């Protein structure tokens, strides 16, 4: 028995006929260290929020550990991929894995969309209609409250809701275009046209970065000129949490695009083997679709 499992780990996969050998990686310390880094980050953040001086340092240490491990771990995977450890069978596992990971992200955004629908359809109208139903009202200021709610509650400051047809409309155009450019790059990869592939990826990254720049400006504008903050009633809460988590995902997506752009420049990926490219493209489309939901539900309606 022992001889055979030595064989399964060390022999090159191409020694086996297709579909009979599944790549099981060597023991690895990365997951353990990554968990330790996440522990430090969480602990530091808790202490930071509760005003303990050590908190930010522990967070910093945790972030350092996480970044180091993520870079090393992905580096290891890229190395394994380039040296032929993965074939169709493993490739399919990665595809399934990525799909279900994205679905879990969909469920995460669903929680915040659910909260938005709930406050728009149930809690805010309930607070509005308390007077006729119960003959009293907690907050008289709410009597002409319509969504987008324009007051921060009884003691809250007034604010101006974010309009849809300025920066958000431009950002919609930017993200939709980036969805097109990455597909254009994918077509190029399938046709083995490396120049178009690199150009398409570069454009996608540029559009993502411009999007993030606009969103940063929008937040600055909201805080300094509109009085729209995280604390500006439940409108501010849903606005910043939904767009903020989306922006965070765009940031991650852009970093992922940069990684595969670097790999493309080094000549990685072939017309029929490029899971990493497709995984990032799927993720980017997912971020794109979430944005459309945001544009319609948060900004427009």
């Amino acid at each position: 028995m022992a001889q055979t499992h030595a064989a399964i780990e060390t022999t090159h996969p191409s020694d086996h006929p297709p579909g009979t050998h599944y790549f099981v990686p060597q023991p690895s310390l990365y997951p353990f260290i990554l968990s330790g880094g996440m522990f430090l980050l969480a602990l530091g953040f808790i202490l930071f929020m509760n005003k303990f001086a050590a908190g930010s340092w522990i967070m910093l240490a945790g972030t350092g550990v996480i970044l180091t491990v993520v870079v090393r771990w992905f580096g290891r995977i890229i190395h394994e991929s380039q040296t032929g450890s993965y074939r169709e069978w493993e490739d399919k596992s990665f595809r399934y894995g990525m799909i279900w990971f994205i679905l879990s992200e969909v469920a995460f955004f669903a929680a915040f969309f659910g909260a938005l629908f709930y406050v728009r359809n149930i809690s805010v109208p309930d607070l509005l209609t308390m007077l006729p139903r119960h003959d009293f009202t907690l907050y008289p200021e709410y009597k002409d409250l319509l969504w987008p709610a324009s007051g921060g509650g009884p003691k809250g400051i007034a604010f101006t809701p974010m309009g849809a047809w300025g920066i958000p409309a431009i950002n919609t155009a930017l993200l939709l275009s980036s969805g097109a450019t990455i597909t254009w790059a994918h077509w190029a990869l399938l046709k083995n046209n490396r120049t178009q592939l690199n150009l398409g990826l570069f454009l996608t990254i540029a559009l993502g970065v411009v999007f993030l720049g606009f969103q940063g400006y929008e937040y600055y504008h909201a805080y300094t000129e509109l009085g729209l903050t995280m604390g500006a009633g439940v409108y501010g809460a849903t606005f910043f949490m939904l767009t903020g988590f989306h922006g965070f995902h765009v940031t991650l997506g852009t970093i992922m695009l940069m990684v595969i752009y670097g790999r493309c420049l080094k000549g990685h990926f072939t017309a029929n083997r490029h899971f990493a490219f497709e995984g990032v493209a799927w993720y980017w489309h997912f971020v794109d679709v979430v944005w459309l939901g945001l544009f319609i539900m948060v900004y427009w309606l």
Partner: protein
Amino acid sequence: MSHATTAPHETHHDAHYPGGIMRWLTTTNHKDIGSMYLTFALIMFFVGGAMILAVRAELFQPGLQLMQPEFFNQLIGIHALVMIFAALMPAATGFANWQIPLMIGAPDMALPRINNWGFWLLPPAAILLTLPFLLAVFGIGDGALNTGWTMYAPLSVQGGIGVDFAIFSIHILGISSILGSINVIVTIFNLRAPGMTMMKLPIFCWGWLITAFLLIATIPVLAGAVTMLLTDRHFGTHFFNAAGGGDPILFQHLFWFFGHPEVYILLLPVWGLMPHVLATFSRKPMYGYKAQVYSFIAIGLLSVVVWAHHFFTAGLPVPALLYFMYSTMAISLPLAVLFFCWIATMWKGAMSFETPMLFAQGFIIMFGVAGLTGLVLADVAADAQYHHSYFVIAHFHYALFAGGIMGVMTGVYYWLPKWTGYMYDEKLGKLHFWLTVISFNLTFMPQFFLGLAGMPRRIPDYALQFTEFNAISTVGAMILGFSQLIFAWNIWKCARGHANGLAPAEGRAWEGATGLEWELSSPPPHHSWEVQPDLRQPGA
């Protein structure tokens, strides 16, 4: 524990595998990871159990004897989180890791490093959950989460540092669950032996597959809910604060959108393993495989649309109450299908009652009690009386202890010979079963009556008329808690079966057992199926 016997002859010949502690930190092997999950679950089972024994000791008599209410509140909430997230769920994931590759003819889980990460996220999360107890001793913060495990706003918005620890613990546990689920789904979809169609998949794998779907759909919603809680606490948002247009009931909706499917997340793996055990010890094929698979799917779908029955008394509109009542009751239909399939599997079988079969019998009867009392709770009109009483505590312990934990024990005794290569001590197993089943009923049956008489849950003191039943319940709980030491001893003994002179287990450890996992030796080789069995050829 169970790995102890497989260790020497595996690592011995093979220079690639680090030994000692590094073996466990770095392993990518599904059996090693499964053993770690199960060991962790067993340890946390005792941690959570010790907490609740302290609670039961306090409730032995009316008045405050042992602890202040603030500490009592911490114990009940952390007990629940530890038992659900750190004991039952890891135990189920341990089963998945050990059994799914064996049962479907795979060499390992599909994503082995992710698998290792999923496990190693658990100890940090458990530390985060319990660290505030320790910090309070040094004057940092005011102890652990003290809101009960449901963390309802606005109490949790106002709570101390323990709430923050619980929030991040839940985040990390959630990531671990999602990683585990992705691994299970990918393994089942991609690594089945040739010829094993989805409708030939062992039913344990089907149960876990539906569990994994539910985890992926609902754990992120819980993550979202606790994130909103965090920003309400520290960053000035008003999700759960009516002063800003939010609503504390929103938290209940989000929490129970996760919380109700969570019940099935805990139970589906057990429902999956139960037919295997019943068929083995009845020496008959399982009855109604397809009906059970479709019932799993129906229960999975229904479980995400019934959540509001957990807060009928919170002030929901009547149409919502009616909808949630009827949809909740509808779950009893596919569940009844499962019960009848279990009974029909045993019908006219050549039954024998080894420990796993005993636990399976106890499971069916007492989980039936949980189901029937659940129907009563689902009734909106009746629930106003039962809500937040000890009746609810008794109901969900029949579901999660007699259903969940005894189901896990069924699986442990059933598969222990496969994992360790030795037959466990049958006498100890039977002693463990009878002590457990008797003391369990002694603990929780009186709580139904306490609840009906009006004793509220989560209160460290109670009115004098509740004294006798509480005293009985505490005695039962102490016996129940300490009986579990027999379980731990039996596992330890079996894991070191050679030293303890136990009989070696054959590949097919049970006479009536069928399925791929019994074709392998006990314990199975390091890589379970290096060459996949081909089920397309007859007799392969």
